């Protein structure tokens, strides 16, 4: 079969997701991960090259999600990229559970990619960033194992989720202090005002 997959998340993809969560502190938010499968059979790597922040309200309803996924798959398909995972940030600080909505969406992505990743924002790690340097992403990784259930990866100390650029957290902290999260646009914003660009193409310029 192959070795266990590693997950490498690019800086912009990573930062967009965290900034999105920070923009909507009082609600749950979600997003999709775009990228490709690379590496070898023995050492497969899921490269997360981009992310799209999706919603910050009514996350459980299907219609807006379906429209978003059609558009996202169309746009990224043309670049040879596909949806490789899903990101979720819970409403409450203390809630570290992977909820059913996340699992359902994850199941959908898993159908096309068994190495699909579910990322859950780790609020405690995010808070700790301001106090100490951290190289690892402030997210928890879940994958579907042979038992077909979503399992937390890395609780045994192994880290299979890595930041591609080691300084990503430093850049993130910079953006947080400058209030960059105000500029993040998600699909909800686009549906309310289509002149808002859910690709966030101007965000990092």
């Amino acid at each position, binding site marked *: 079969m192959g070795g266990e997959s590693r997950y490498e998340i690019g800086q912009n993809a990573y930062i967009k997701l965290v900034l999105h969560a920070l923009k909507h502190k*009082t609600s*749950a938010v979600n997003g999709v991960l775009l990228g490709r499968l690379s590496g070898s059979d023995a050492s497969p790597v899921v490269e997360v090259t981009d992310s799209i922040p999706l919603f910050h*309200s*009514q*996350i*459980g*309803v*299907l*219609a*807006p999600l*379906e*429209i978003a996924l*059609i*558009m996202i798959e*169309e*746009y990224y398909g043309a670049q040879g990229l596909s949806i490789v995972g899903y990101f979720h940030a819970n*409403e*409450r600080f*203390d*809630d570290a559970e992977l*909820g*059913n*909505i996340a699992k*359902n969406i994850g199941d959908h992505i898993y159908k096309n990619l068994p190495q699909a990743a579910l990322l859950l924002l780790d609020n405690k790690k995010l808070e700790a960033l301001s106090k100490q340097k951290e190289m690892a992403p402030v997210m928890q990784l879940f994958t579907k194992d042979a038992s077909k259930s979503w399992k937390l990866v890395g609780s045994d100390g192994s880290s299979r989720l890595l930041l591609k650029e080691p300084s990503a957290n430093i850049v993130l902290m910079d953006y947080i202090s400058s209030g960059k999260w105000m500029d993040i646009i998600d699909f909800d914003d*686009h*549906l*309310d005002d*289509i*002149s808002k*660009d859910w690709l966030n193409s101007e965000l990092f310029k």
Partner: protein
Amino acid sequence: MVSKTEEAEVNRLESQADNGGGGEWEYLSLVRKLKLRRPDKVLKHGLTILNDPKKRSSLGHDEWTLYEQVAIAAMDCHCLDVAQDCIKVLQKKFPESKRVGRLEAMLLEAKGSWAEAEKAYLSLLEDNPLDQVILKRRVALTKAQGDISGAIQRLSEYLEVFMADHEAWRELAEIYVSLQMYKQAAFCYEELILSQPMIPLYHLAYADVLYTLGGLENLQTAKKYYASTIDLTGGKNNRALFGVCLCTFAVAQLTKGRYKEDKESPELQSLAAAALEKDYKLRAPSKLSLLGSTLRSLKLSS
């Protein structure tokens, strides 16, 4: 719920205050009136006034309302010391006040002292068992501790008494959606539509929930409510326009031509698609081709 003009006005006042152009009190009053949640700005601009003795005294009696508003914003931003200071000022001015007592209990909540906050709320309720704010704070308290089913129960009990509280129905609906309890969410939206049939937001939310539930009947009803949303918003609600397209496609998938579609529907879908194309062409031209391929993928008929 806030209209676009109201939102534009509050944003204008906010950036004016942000850029040192004054008008903090007007901004804060509008935020209070519209019941918006912008704690970091309220805290910043509220403190600008409160920390300046001249500005403070020019408020007259409104000074105390500002202390309350800033206390709540401070708690929302987790600046508990600031909140404590504001509450102390209010305690001194209004000893024995129930309204200040409520703020004290909220501060306990903000600190995470759940049991003490609950005790404080219960004792406040002894004298005034129908205080809606406190009853709702108890729901928030339960939710904050992660006891979502407890929150649902308390909120449902609240709504049995205060069935006209629309915000509470919306909160309950949203909790149900987050738990994927769509039938129960649908019930909440039905209540809202019955009591306020002209508010498009409820029609849209109801349609979204029905679409999510799926099944032929729900999809057909969802389409009707997406259509009524379009009606109530003069065709300007893109979510509803997309909703119509999705419903038509989903129904076609389910029926596979086995039964006759109702006559209005093919026109409805093409009208919705045309409206979307017109809007994207005007306001999001870079996304027009993406829209085109999305609509094409939804026009597949059996």
